[in-house]
């Protein structure tokens, strides 16, 4: 579903590349989490997959199509930590935005809105459709962002620390929601997080990134992902410890 080969990427003006000959593969329907120290390139990786950044060299393909340097990737939908919704648009207009931006001057017909309506209902926020983002809680805002992404019927869902700006209860609620969505739709997900617990809870496979430059790939396999009841399990705690050790190895100078 996602194939990254020999990726090289550096921010302009920085001598150390974030990725230097980095290769990585995601199969259809897998749920990945990405974790690493801040500045390791977690978010950059998502932007590269979404087609928002152009690699210096190497190849990235999503759903079989080459995305490198071709502008936003049509098969990937991105949900950011916060500020992703238009403050001046209602929930309904935000949810339809992905459908509308592709034909900015045409009329958004009913057929195009059906997907957005479906997801607003599915995520339990249909009654908020005439509200503006400033009138919503953090959790509700992220549900709108998810509905907007899912209305595009993406092959890959990219989430950049999507729950770090909401309170603990809403966070757990959203984590549960993502697990259910993944189980029901089988959409391939890549979720960036800074929380070890969240990485273990939501990632079938966990990609551990290093301090730049990232050359080799460190993957932690995790068969417990997707079931919130594991949270209290000793195996879950053991997996979190394993991941923490991986991360501290990474952080050794």
């Amino acid at each position: 579903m996602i194939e990254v080969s020999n990726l090289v990427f550096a921010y302009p003006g920085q001598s150390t590349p974030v990725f230097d000959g980095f290769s990585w593969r995601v199969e259809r329907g897998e749920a990945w989490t990405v974790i690493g120290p801040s500045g390791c390139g977690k978010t950059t990786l998502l932007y590269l997959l979404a087609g928002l950044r152009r690699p210096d060299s190497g190849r990235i393909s999503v759903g079989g199509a080459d995305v490198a340097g071709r502008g936003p990737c049509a098969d990937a939908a991105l949900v950011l930590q916060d500020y992703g919704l238009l403050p001046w648009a209602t929930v309904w207009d935000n949810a339809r935005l992905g459908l509308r931006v592709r034909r900015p001057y045409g009329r958004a017909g009913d057929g195009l809105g059906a997907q957005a309506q479906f997801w607003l209902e599915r995520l339990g926020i249909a009654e908020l459709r005439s509200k503006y983002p400033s009138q919503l809680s953090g959790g509700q805002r992220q549900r709108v962002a998810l509905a907007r992404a899912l209305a595009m019927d993406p092959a890959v869902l990219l989430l950049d620390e999507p729950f770090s700006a909401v309170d603990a209860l809403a966070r757990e609620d959203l984590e549960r929601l993502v697990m259910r969505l993944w189980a029901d739709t089988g959409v391939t997900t890549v979720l960036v997080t800074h929380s070890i617990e969240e990485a273990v809870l939501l990632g079938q496979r966990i990609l551990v990134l290093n301090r730049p430059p990232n050359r080799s790939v460190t993957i932690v396999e995790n068969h417990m992902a997707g079931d919130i009841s594991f949270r209290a399990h000793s195996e879950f705690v053991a997996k979190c410890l394993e991941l923490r050790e991986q991360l501290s190895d990474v952080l050794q100078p």
Partner: protein
Amino acid sequence: MRRSDTAIASLALLIVWQAAALLLHNPILPGPLQVLLAVVRLAPGALGRHFVASAARVLLSTAIAVGLATPLGLAAGQSAGLNRLISPIVYVLYPIPKIVFLPIIVLLLGIGDLPKVVIITLILFFQVLVVVRDQAASIRPELLLSVRSLGAGRLAMLRFVYLPATLPAVLTSLRLSVGTAVAVLFFAESFATTSGLGYYIFVETWTRLAYVDMYAGVVAMSVLGLGLYFAIDGLERLLCPYLFLE
């Protein structure tokens, strides 16, 4: 601002005016009722004609200034290179009171509507340019990226992000500068012309010592300024409802 508050403030002003007129008891300060009757009497004739001439000049200048400054401001807000080019020019020209150019503009463009429209456009242009540029540059990168990731091209970014993001700032800059625009218009119309409220107040009534008619002109000019101010307020409520949530 609540409607009732506005009404009470207006009433208080009228009472002060009436009291001053009674105290002074002199033809140079007629009372509000007398002036109001004059407005009603003159509105279908000369006063109305000059009001329309002035209003048309302000509206045309506003449209031109917004039409020119918005695209340039949006472009400068998005492109660091263009901003580096125009910023020093704006920095030097912005604080200069544009009205000092009026004699030159009149010399170059003669009498008639053009020099008035040019001077007001010049004043509004810089106000709008600066706020649109700053607003476009301050849009959160997360917002831009998330909309771009949906597949938005340049046109869609403009239509769904840049224009709505800068609209409140454009309206605020207009609200702040519309008073200046009307004041400059008044001055610009007070010579080298035969139409407009400035001409009516200074040439047709003041020099003839027609005090009541002159006050009618002053009221008309105030109505013009207030009307524009209220119109911008109304536009903001209509176009930016998200700013007025409970």
